[in-house]
């Protein structure tokens, strides 16, 4: 069995003094290299908190997070986080190219080499022709792609995505889902994808972790045995897809 790349061991997270609120309780999970793991749960179940713990933005009150065997206590470029509120995670005063370059500057990439790398990444996410535009001129979907490109520029080992398509319309969402799937497959990237959309989780994941709410804990973990590459039309009509959906649907509270 391959050593997990990223692991959470009996994680717990509480806030407040009196009363103390338990957001996460006894969460253990492992993420293997090149896996696409989806975490799905209702709003408020703590899945975003879990992702932030995995990314080192928060420290667990119980348990620990390990990355390649070492404890995660602070954020690291190797664990790239794609935030849901993309607008707030981009620098409005830099162009599209400038935003991607930020990650390269942080990495210490030589100035001369930056332009080529930036353009290549922008081509990968389909923004090559908007390199000199400012974020304010881009649509929501494009801004999210820009954030993804910036995260890829970090040369991450894990991509942690926090409901990245939650603020987008259905059509853009589907396009981006396929793009992320493609990017992950091409680069062999490990992805942890948090969403409240059950179908999105099954569509994208190799494995789906379904969380229960109040407090957040792991409900069920299922392997997604669907062939790749996946297709928005055919995969979603596949029998296995529907079975999985049926199985996990009952786990999540009604009307989520």
């Amino acid at each position, binding site marked *: 069995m391959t050593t997990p790349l990223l692991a959470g061991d009996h994680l717990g997270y509480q806030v407040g003094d009196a009363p103390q609120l338990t957001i996460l309780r006894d969460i253990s999970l492992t993420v293997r290299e090149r896996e696409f793991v989806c975490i799905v749960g209702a709003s408020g179940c703590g899945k975003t908190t879990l992702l932030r713990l995995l*990314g080192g*933005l928060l420290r667990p009150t119980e348990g620990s997070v390990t990355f390649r065997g070492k404890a995660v206590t*602070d*954020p*690291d*470029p190797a*664990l*790239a*986080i794609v*935030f849901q*509120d993309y607008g*707030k*995670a981009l*620098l*409005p*005063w*830099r*162009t599209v190219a400038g935003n991607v370059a*930020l*990650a390269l*500057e*942080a990495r210490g990439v030589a100035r001369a080499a930056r332009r080529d790398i930036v353009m290549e990444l922008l081509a990968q996410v389909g923004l090559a022709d908007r390199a000199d535009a*400012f*974020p*304010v*001129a881009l649509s929501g979907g494009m801004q999210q792609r820009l954030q993804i490109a910036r995260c890829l520029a*970090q040369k991450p080992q894990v991509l942690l995505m926090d409901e990245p398509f939650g603020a987008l319309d259905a059509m853009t969402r589907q396009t981006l889902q396929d793009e992320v799937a493609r990017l992950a497959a091409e680069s062999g990237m490990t992805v942890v994808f948090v969403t409240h959309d059950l179908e999105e989780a099954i569509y994208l994941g190799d494995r789906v972790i379904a969380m229960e709410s109040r407090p957040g804990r792991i409900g069920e973990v299922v392997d997604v045995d669907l062939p790749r590459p996946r297709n928005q039309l055919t995969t979603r009509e596949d029998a296995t897809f529907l079975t999985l959906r049926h199985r996990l649907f009952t786990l999540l509270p009604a009307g989520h």
Partner: protein
Amino acid sequence: MTRTATLQALGSVAVALALIALWQLAANAGLISPVFFPGPDRSFGTLWEQLHEADFWLACGETLRRMALGFLSAAIAGVVLGSVLGLSGRLRSYVEPTLEFVRPLPASAVIPLFVLLIGLNERMIVAVIAFASLWPVLLGTVHGFKTVEPRLGEVARMLHLSPLAFVLKMALPNAMPDIFAGLRLALTVSLILAVVTEMLSGMEGLGHNIIMAARSFRSADLYAGIIVLGAIGFATNLALERIERHVLRWRGTEPG
């Protein structure tokens, strides 16, 4: 410009000219005392004459020089101090209440103090202008640095940006709009204080010119001086706005 916009602009020119014509008629008909309200012919005529006199340009130069010196030193000091305060919550909690008290203080009220400290001379004038112009820039800068988007802070942590890189690449650009708002206010203040100090100190300058004109009942000179001061206010503001628009071009078009 659209057709309506052009027509309206022309219309406003026409209205302005009509008002000036009315002014002239009233002066000619002796409806208003020529001592207090010289007609536009005399006012603009005197202005035209003054523009040909070396003394006028000397006075103008003095006023502008003091404005520039005071404004620029205040701008630099304000941004530097403001950035330090804006980034340090701890320092702020000690200093902010005092700042809140100084903010509403009429800047001209400190003139007697500065006269006592420095004397009735050139240095006093520039010092007063700098003192008065400092506050808007300082407060604007503090606000700009205070309100850095927390999400960007997380991105900075994730990328392992150095504190200096964070300030230069995130905090400072983020503060620019607020800094410019403070600068615009400081510019207005510097003109006002230049005029006031010149009126009080009897030193060569536009402020001195108009108070002398009033005391010797040379109303046309007075009006000419007022027009010049208005023009300076307009021109300096326009220049600053142009700079602001260029530096902040990433904001895109403001919503109509």
